[in-house]
């Protein structure tokens, strides 16, 4: 009996370990794919792997927030890729304190972009916010790249 329990536990742990490794590798592949989609003139700097639930009863969509430092005289590229299984469509916005600087979706004009260049003229801390349209649940990857002048 003891041997059986030991056997099952061992197999279970091994399966979990392998599953974790596979998941990590899959995630890295997706990040790399998204970074390639940012363009040949862009050098990968950071990624934002986002998985959010659907909006709750208060209808406020969950948001991913990450602050990051951007530097003067550098052109950055923000790009967003939705994962295949994602229900919602991701929107990436960048804020300088309370002011929105850019968005991959402008509902008023209906314009959408999967990547946007940002010519930074003020060194400082900015905020990247990623959410999903209509508060749907979803998974996406945001990429920050350096664009060569």
């Amino acid at each position, binding site marked *: 009996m003891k041997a059986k329990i030991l056997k099952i536990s061992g197999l279970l742990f091994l399966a979990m*370990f392998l599953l974790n490794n596979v998941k990590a590798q899959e995630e890295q592949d997706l990040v790399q794919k998204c970074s390639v989609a940012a363009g040949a003139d862009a050098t990968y*700097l950071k990624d934002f792997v986002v998985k959010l639930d659907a909006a709750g009863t208060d209808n406020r969509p969950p948001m991913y927030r990450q602050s990051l430092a951007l530097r003067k*005289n550098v052109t950055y590229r923000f790009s967003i890729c939705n994962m295949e299984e994602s229900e919602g469509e991701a929107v990436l916005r960048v804020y300088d304190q309370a002011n929105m600087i850019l968005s991959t979706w402008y509902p008023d004009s209906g314009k959408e972009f999967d990547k946007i260049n940002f010519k930074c003229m003020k060194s400082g801390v900015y905020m990247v916010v990623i959410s999903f349209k209509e508060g749907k649940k979803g998974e996406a990857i945001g990429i920050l790249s350096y664009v060569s002048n």
Partner: protein
Amino acid sequence: MLKKVAYIIILILVFYSCKGPNNELNMPGYELASGDIQIPEEAMEDIIQNISSPIEMAALIKDLGLNFSDQYLSNLDLVDNYSSSFKMAYTLGMLGADLGYLNVYERTGSSVSYLAAINKLADGLKVSQFFDFNTIKRLATSNSNLDSLIFMSVHSFNEMDKHLQLTDRSNLSALMIAGVWIEGMFQVTQVSLSQKDPVLSEYIGEQKLILNNLLLILKNYERDDQFAAIIKDYEELKKSFSKVDITYEISDPEPVEQEDGMLMVVQQETSIISISDNVLSEIIEKTKTIRNKHQLL
């Protein structure tokens, strides 16, 4: 019987690989000194995101059309002697900046020895699972896909840093980030000695903001003697940075749709960095002294 042994081995391996954070702190030669962490972990992560990327400084240097020099790289001879995780984490950061510099300048052949040293340090810190040495080495030696090489290198560093934070080793993450920063600063300041460039001077001046953030993180661990020594040196550098003025002109950003349909947002609000030649020289000199001293710590 053999099966039983095999299962026990598997269990040990799995437990070892999933080893908890507390175990990982007990590494040879370095333990975190007792004392309260003043900044919450989430805030720490936020601050760390605001420190230099191992490739950004190098990309900026190359964009300015400045030549490559191996004089700006760390000495690898000492790496074999490092046994404390403190030293390993700090050096890992420094070598990360060197690798970024080598990759950006496509000196991939020379980067192999740096890759080997990084792998050794990552192994010592138990984060080598995020550094796919063989793939990165293959990409470096085949010289065929620079984009993949840069992606793999930078992503590995991001993942190692994340893992250190997730496993309650933010102290080592802070050291790694500090290493990236001081080495990047050394490269940029040395380059600016050989070629005066206003963009470079501004870039150096604005590191005042980064250094303040960095000190905020490092001071969490100042009860530790080794951290205290680094903080003392960085405080010395901060004195020189206090003579750098940063002011802002406020205006709204301007979105412009480019010919290829991509949106370009040009920020109209600007930061103005005032740094005199004397202060610049002072920062260059202090950076060099600190970086060289820390290499030998």
